[in-house]
């Protein structure tokens, strides 16, 4: 069953240097109870994709295509209707917990706020619910910690609090934008374990540049490069036998696989290379790659790739 479906999604916003085509063009499906990993490097448009689903971008941004959530197109909803979706149906866990939490409000209040915005209940009830949520993300002595301001929380604890805010209204879909960025190896492991637990009966779009984290938590992984998806497969398949040269290059640059870099650098989202957007950096590039833009093709069951080698 499909929970969220993106159809030909395009997101552009104007800047002084030109039109940034941050998402161009993405088709994607997230099933119920599925964890989909979206991996890509800085500036490939993956965060913008997440923000596009929530419709939380600057007013000058243009979003085209369809975002079908439970049968309705989110792009057709009014702002008031969208507000009812945010937090309650689709929640977001932002990157950088240090700045995403308000430093002058207690953590308990910030979680209660999220609950109270969507459900009619007294402040005391919201507060009790908040403590419950804090307990569910395994914050020690939640009754006490709910009354503390964020600066008393360590980096990992703040991340837990962020997850708690996301979970507060029991949403069906969670969009997590780089939740493990800047955390230590051991803290990261704990957070991933926790996220796995709390999303057992939920769907999640897990946006990250951390390949290890994605391998650990996701059911399906999509690789994004220069505004589009280049490969999408079940996690085991993608890491086991990657098909797209970019995915292969990405995996080979991991320290545990020999630190072999991809040459060149990511293109800007303002003007892409012609044809296949990866061809200037690709070892397998041939004449056609320069001229024609490849379409996504199905290679195996649930393994899609955008490359002429598999046509």
């Amino acid at each position: 069953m499909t929970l969220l479906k993106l159809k030909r999604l395009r997101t552009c916003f104007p800047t002084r240097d030109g039109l940034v085509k941050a998402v161009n063009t993405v088709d994607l499906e997230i099933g119920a109870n599925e964890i989909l990993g979206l991996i890509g490097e800085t500036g490939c448009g993956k965060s913008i994709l997440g923000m596009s689903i929530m419709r939380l971008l600057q007013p000058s941004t243009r979003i085209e295509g369809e975002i079908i959530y439970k049968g309705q197109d989110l792009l057709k909803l009014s702002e008031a209707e969208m507000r009812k979706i945010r937090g309650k149906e689709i929640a977001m866990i932002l990157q950088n917990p240090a700045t995403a939490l308000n430093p002058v409000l207690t953590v308990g209040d910030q979680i209660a706020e999220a609950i109270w915005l969507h459900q009619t209940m007294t402040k005391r009830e919201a507060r009790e619910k908040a403590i419950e949520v804090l307990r569910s993300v395994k914050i020690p002595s939640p009754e006490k910690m709910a009354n503390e301001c964020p600066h008393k929380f360590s980096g990992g604890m703040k991340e837990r609090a962020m997850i708690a805010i996301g979970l507060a209204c029991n949403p069906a879909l969670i969009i997590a934008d780089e939740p493990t960025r800047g955390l230590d190896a051991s803290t990261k492991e704990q957070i991933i374990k926790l996220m796995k637990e709390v999303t057992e009966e939920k769907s999640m779009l897990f946006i990250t540049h951390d390949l290890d984290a994605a391998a650990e938590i996701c059911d399906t992984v999509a690789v994004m490069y220069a505004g589009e998806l280049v490969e999408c497969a079940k996690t085991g398949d993608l890491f086991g036998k990657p098909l797209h040269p970019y995915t292969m290059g990405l995996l080979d640059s991991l320290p545990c696989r020999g630190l072999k870099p991809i040459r060149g650098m990511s293109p800007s989202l303002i003007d892409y290379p012609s044809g296949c957007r990866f061809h200037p950096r690709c070892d397998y590039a041939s004449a056609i790659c320069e001229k024609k833009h490849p379409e996504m093709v199905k290679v195996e069951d649930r393994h899609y790739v955008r490359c002429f080698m598999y046509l």
Partner: protein
Amino acid sequence: MTEKTIELTDLRRLWDTYSEKRIGVIGLVIMLVFIVMAVFAPYIAPHDPYELYNPMEPPGPDHLLGTNDIGQDILSELIYGARVSLFIAFFVSIVSGLIGTILGLLSGYYEHVGFFIMRIVDAFLAIPRLPLIILIAAFMRPSIWNLVIIFTILGWPITTRIIRSEVLSLRTRNYVEAARMLGAPDSYIMIKHILPNVFPLLVVRLVVEASHVILAESSLSFLGLGDPTAKSWGMILHYAFMYPTIYISDVWKWWMLPPGLCIVLTILSLMFIGYALEELVNPRLRGMTQV
């Protein structure tokens, strides 16, 4: 590309960011009008502001804003007044800005020096500004230069404190540490690596200080503590208020209102400029585009 063209595009970028705020452009236009008025006063003013005509004449073709109680042309007074007000404002803000920057740099960079300077700054900041100005002005002989000295003495501590707090943060930046690792002397680091990065903040501070000074000068002149021979806007107001029937006749419309408006407009334009400049200070908005 040559270096020159790059400098030009930088300026262009800066102007683009600045002009995005319409309010900043409005402020700049008003300020330019006043500056032109001040610089070219002898050419613009229809009369010599010290020359005596018929007293208390209402506005007419010869005297657009009428004359005052001793027969001086009010419009000309107003135009010459821009000179005094703006001169004091810019002179004070630049001098106190200079002192504040030097002391702010030193006190931010060297901890022990900073401790000492900050105690002096604290002492100055603890004194309420306007009452002290009134007190000093009352005891000193009223003249423009005395006003300049008083305002400078009271202006530098704030600048020092603002610059110092910025330097304290800049000092720990990696690029400053990297410069230290190159064996660069302290003076070099301060001038090359810290000063350019506090400069935007300083510009905003100068603008704000200028508007403070204009207001303070007008208040003092209005209270009769200004230079009685200088034609400042505050002084015009002062004489207007001393005129016995100012409130019951129509005279206030051309004698009191115009200098009051000039003061308000100047301060407003400085505030607008400062507001738009804040945008440039924010490095996230400068050069880079927001995502």
